């Protein structure tokens, strides 16, 4: 029988989940075409794009994960997260308006338009890999969190949380996802902001926290205490590039009502998160670090539970309803990222697989049905994977390592230095970026002695693989730069040369 504190927490969570159901049902009536379902009719204003982009960015990794990282390694973790927000600012200011101007539905469409069918296929494979990994990680995080809050077995909690997310994403598509993202954004900003404000005051600001840290002989405010400078820079670059233009963010560039709304929506999300999140996670992580009660509890449990444990221990004595709202904020953060990946997966299946390869002339009602069915299938597959793989951080690290080396350079070439003759060079760089990541991760890195070569062994695969991808691009461009692309290499925006 749950006590009154638990009842308040469960009540707050139940109200929040019912709100999601209501939004899903309402959005179902607004969806009439596949364009409504996949890109919300391209009608969103900058503040809506800002909220949905920021809610998507603050997932399990940036909230629960980062508070536990600050708890473990200190200020370096908060500084590293700045890279995520900086990439959103760069994407918003210079890339989002150009992408919006092309009226695309998926990333695959951009690659076919600029570099032909072969590049599109490679891009779609990378999108599938990224979305499968990211969705599995977020659904697994939802299960872990809900299980902690509801005190139910992990498997049952995973099923409850993913069933709700799959329901509203299937019913209302991206329209429901954007609306729930706004609700989740408000709850998580208000929740995390309130928690950081109260804990800051309780600990007499950073001066009080620093005093307590020195009493405990901890160097949490020393930037290079945990990571040597080379590893810190390497991780910063990996964070900066690892998420750049991944499908959920690219979709946010496509759904704005025009170029300017796309620019200020995405860049605004980056500016807001840069101001808000690193400072808030630093306060939360360090407040937990200097709290003897939390340290005692963490000695026997998973460090990923720092944030929910901190919320419960600090706010339940003030009022259990406050604790319940803040727990709902954490669940909201994770759900808002999972639903975005789910929606992107369905759009990819409908546009890049069904319409491209199976039924190019399918009527819109059939496309809408396919999109809805694939939302359910993708959600169920990711839930199945989440049962098998529980280590959220390593799943995310794995998919980030593959994304950046293969996908970043083609975007920049396609948008800022485009020529159809560079198609061969782009395909060569995508292939070598992927192969270099595989080689570094599975062949080279395991053979590096961390004692003899500490700097080299601390490098993430992103940097060496990206350098090799750039070299492959430059060399192929030197050799094939005058050759006109033909066949599968012919961009859809150009005509085949006469025989």
């Amino acid at each position: 029988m749950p006590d009154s504190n638990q009842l308040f927490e469960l009540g707050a969570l139940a109200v929040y989940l019912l709100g999601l159901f209501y939004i899903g049902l309402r959005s179902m009536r607004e969806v009439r075409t596949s364009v409504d379902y996949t890109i919300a009719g391209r009608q969103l204003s900058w503040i809506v794009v800002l909220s949905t982009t920021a809610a998507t960015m603050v997932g399990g990794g940036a909230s629960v994960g980062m508070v536990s990282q600050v708890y473990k390694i200190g200020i370096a973790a908060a500084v590293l997260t700045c890279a995520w927000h900086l990439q959103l600012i760069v994407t918003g200011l210079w890339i989002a308006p150009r992408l919006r101007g092309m009226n695309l539905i998926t990333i695959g469409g951009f690659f076919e338009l600029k570099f032909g069918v072969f590049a599109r296929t490679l891009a779609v494979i990378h999108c599938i890999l990224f979305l499968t990994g990211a969705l599995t990680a977020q659904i697994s995080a939802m299960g872990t969190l809900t299980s902690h809050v509801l005190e139910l077995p992990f498997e049952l909690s995973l099923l409850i949380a993913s069933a709700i997310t799959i329901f509203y994403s299937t019913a209302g598509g991206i329209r429901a996802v954007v609306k729930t993202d706004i609700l989740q954004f408000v709850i998580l900003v208000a929740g995390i902001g309130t928690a950081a404000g109260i804990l800051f005051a309780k600990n007499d600001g950073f001066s009080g926290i620093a005093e307590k840290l020195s009493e405990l002989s901890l160097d949490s405010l020393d930037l290079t205490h945990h990571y040597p400078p080379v590893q810190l820079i390497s991780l910063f670059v990996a964070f900066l590039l690892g998420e750049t233009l991944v499908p959920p963010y690219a979709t946010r560039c496509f759904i704005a009502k025009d170029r300017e709304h796309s620019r200020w929506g995405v860049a605004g999300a980056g500016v807001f998160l840069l101001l808000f999140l690193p400072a808030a996670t630093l306060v939360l992580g360090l407040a937990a670090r200097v709290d003897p009660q939390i340290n005692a509890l963490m000695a026997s449990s998973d460090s990923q539970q720092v944030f929910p444990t901190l919320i419960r221990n600090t706010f339940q004595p003030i009022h259990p309803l406050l604790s319940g709202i803040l727990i709902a904020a954490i669940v909201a953060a994770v759900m808002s990222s999972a639903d975005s990946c789910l929606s992107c997966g369905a759009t990819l299946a409908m546009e890049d697989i069904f319409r491209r390869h199976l039924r190019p002339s399918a009527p819109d009602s059939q496309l809408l049905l396919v999109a809805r069915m694939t939302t359910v299938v993708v959600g169920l597959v990711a839930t199945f994977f989440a049962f098998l793989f529980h280590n959220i951080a390593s799943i995310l690290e794995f998919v980030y390592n593959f994304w950046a080396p293969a996908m970043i350079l083609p975007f920049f070439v396609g948008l800022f230095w485009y020529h159809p003759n560079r198609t061969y060079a782009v395909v060569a760089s995508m292939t070598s970026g992927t192969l270099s990541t595989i080689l570094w991760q599975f062949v080279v890195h395991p053979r590096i002695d961390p004692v003899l070569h500490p700097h080299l062994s601390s490098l993430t695969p992103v940097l060496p693989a990206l350098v090799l991808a750039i070299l492959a691009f430059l060399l192929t461009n030197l050799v094939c730069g005058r050759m006109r692309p033909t066949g599968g290499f012919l961009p859809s925006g150009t005509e085949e040369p006469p025989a």
Partner: protein
Amino acid sequence: MTLLSILNLLHYLSLCSAVVILVLLAVHSFKYGKKAR
């Protein structure tokens, strides 16, 4: 300016940005709701 005073300043900036964004969203929802009616 010491590291601690910079961190304190960043914290206040963080709280202000949260308030500003929530107010902006509230204004937008009000306008959108009025338009929808």
